[in-house]
Structure formats: structure tokens, C-alpha cells
């Protein structure tokens, strides 16, 4: 028993020594000679390169700035003048009919539309402050004449929210056939 223990301990110690020796041989290596000289040489090279490259970088940056400035100026010169805003007009309410209401501009065709309207500039819509017209003539309990039993209704005016004309497509139904087909 004791003999076995001492044998195991010796084996363990041998492995410990092997690990120590392996690590030592791997790590206890001296750097190649001339490390100081190589480091100082790299420092000098870096300083020289920096002093050599700095004027070049400055020239390159200046050239880039001039190029960008010239491109910006050229773009500003080529851009066409902004056309005047198209007048926004109130479109009268369409009559109650099935026929489509086609505005005169659309009816005349695309050729009739002025080319100046096509622009990249945003058209600001007029601010609509009162979408229901003059509210002083609104129908209310006060406007009902109880004696005559008549209701005074002011003429209905529609002020569109958009300048785009409202086009109501005619509803065309096919003739009814038997069987629904």
C-alpha cells in the first residue's frame, strides 16, 4: 500500500516536472538581438513618413475641397429658374348628373397643359380656413320659421381641399342576363 502510494507520487512528480520543463522551454526564450535598434528605427521611420506625408495630405485635401466647391457652384448655375406658382382656383361643385365632370385642362388633352407647371418645387396649398362656407347662414333652430314651416337653406358651396379636380367615373352596368352570367 505504502509502496503503491510512493510510486504514484513519484509518477505525479515526474509529470509535474515534465509540465514545468515544457512551459519553461516554450517561454524562456530571449528576443532576437537588435530589438532596441529595430524599435528606434521604426520610430524614426514613422516620424519621417509623417513629416513627408503631411504636405501631401494637405494638398490632397485642398484639391478635394476645391473640387467639391466647383461642383456645387456648377450645379447652382445649371438649375433652371423657378416657375411662378400656378393660381389656385376654387372649383365649382359638380352638377348632380352621371356624366363625368372633366375639367377643361384635362379635356383639352395633355398638350394643352402648360409645360411650366412641371416643376420639382412643391406647390403650397392655400390654407382652407372655413370648409363649410359662411356659417352665419347655417341651418339651425333659430332659422326655422315655425309659422311658415319653411326652412331657409343657403346655397351649398363646396370648397375642395385639393386643387385636383374631382372626377366621377360614370357607372356603366352591363345588361342583365339570365342566370347572372
Amino acid at each position, binding site marked *: 500500500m505504502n509502496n503503491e502510494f510512493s510510486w*504514484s507520487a513519484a*509518477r*505525479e512528480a*515526474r*509529470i*509535474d*516536472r*515534465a*509540465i*514545468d*520543463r*515544457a*512551459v*519553461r*522551454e*516554450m*517561454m*524562456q*526564450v*530571449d*528576443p*532576437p538581438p537588435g*530589438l*532596441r535598434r*529595430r*524599435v*528606434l528605427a*521604426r*520610430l*524614426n521611420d*514613422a516620424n519621417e513618413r509623417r513629416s513627408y506625408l503631411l504636405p501631401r495630405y494637405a494638398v490632397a485635401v485642398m484639391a478635394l475641397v476645391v473640387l467639391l466647391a466647383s461642383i456645387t457652384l456648377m450645379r447652382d448655375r445649371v438649375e433652371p429658374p423657378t416657375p411662378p406658382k400656378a393660381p389656385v382656383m376654387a372649383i365649382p361643385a359638380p352638377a348632380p348628373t352621371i356624366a363625368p365632370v372633366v375639367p377643361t385642362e384635362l379635356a383639352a388633352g395633355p398638350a394643352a397643359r402648360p409645360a411650366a407647371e412641371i416643376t420639382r418645387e412643391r406647390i403650397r396649398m392655400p390654407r382652407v380656413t372655413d370648409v363649410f362656407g359662411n356659417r352665419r347662414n347655417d341651418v339651425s333652430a333659430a332659422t326655422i320659421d315655425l309659422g311658415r314651416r319653411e326652412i331657409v337653406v343657403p346655397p351649398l358651396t363646396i370648397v375642395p381641399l385639393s386643387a385636383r379636380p374631382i372626377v366621377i367615373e360614370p357607372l356603366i352596368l352591363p345588361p342583365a342576363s339570365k342566370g347572372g352570367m
Partner: protein
Amino acid sequence: MDQSTDCVTGTEPSAATDLDLVRLAQAGDVDAFGELVERNRRAVFRAALACVRSPAEADDVAQEAFVTAYRKLGTFRGDAQFRTWLLSITWRKAIDRRKSISRWLRLAVTPSRMETGEDSFDHMERVATSTRSQEDMFVDEELQQNVTRLIGTLPRKLRDALLLAGTGEHTYEEISQILGAPLGTVKWRVSEARRVLKKKLAALGYAYE
């Protein structure tokens, strides 16, 4: 001029402390920095070697670390030891090198003996500082080769701690600061690395279970 600088200027570089030399280097004295390189070259080289495990790459890493340290000298305020600060830079550089894609590609094309677990170092580059003792002469050469190979298979955290502790240049406190791990953790990693190695050796029939 600062009085301390005057005092430092009058001293020989070999007698000056690291901090004195740092102050001189910060003032633009390249020779003073050269003296710092000379003093710390072995510690820096071996720290890099523990990480990249190739003397040629460790030399590159050591150079990069010194150059970086020189450029960042202005940020060194002397709160910590210069050597510790320098070793931290070295370790970061070595980790970057170890992770670099070009290194992996190079190893993939020409797998070195280091990565395959065989003898890790070129004997032409090896300058062992200690000779083998009489006791070491009796250690089985085959066991030795197996240990070297198995060290390469250890998890990185365990292997880094084991190899840094085996450099003979770094204390556990320094290793703790280099790795950014608590002192107890570093000691545990070294111990665990040895335990794992023994277990692997036992699997190869080198020890009783």
C-alpha cells in the same frame, strides 16, 4: 525648467528609474526611450510569445508595442508602473495579432509545428536562458513532447495564464493586470491548466487514475 527634470537630466540612463526615463522620453528624448526598450524587451517579448506562440511573431508584436507605447507616452501619467502599462499594450497587440485574419490564413496555408502541437519553436531562434538540470535529464523525452503538444490544446484562458506564469518574467500580480482578471482567478487558471494537462496525460497512459 522643472526641478525634477533637471535632476533626471543629470543622471546616467542606467541609474535612472523607469519613471525618470519616461519623463525624458515624453520630453522627446528618444535615447531615454531606447533605454526603456532595453530594460523591458525580454518581458515584452515573452508576454507576446505567450499569446502568439511564435518567436518571429512575438518579435513583431514587441516592436509594435514599443512603437505604440512611444506614441502614447503623453497619456501615461505615472499612476501605474510603466512596465505594467507597457505589458498591457503588448498583450492587446498580441491578442489583435492572434485574431488577425491574415495570421489564420497563413497558418492554414502553412501550418506551423506550433499549431499542430509539435515542437513549438525553431531551435535556431531559441536562446534558452537556463540549462537543463541533471534531474531534468531523466524526464522521458516522449512525455515531454506530449506535454508540449497538449499545452497547445488547452483552452486559451488557461493556456495564456499557464504560459505567462512560466515566462519567469511576470509575477502573478502582473499577469493579473495584463489579463485584466483578478489575482485569484489567474492562480486558479494556472492550477486548472495543470490539472487538465495531467488528466489528458492520464488518458495517454502517463499516470495512474
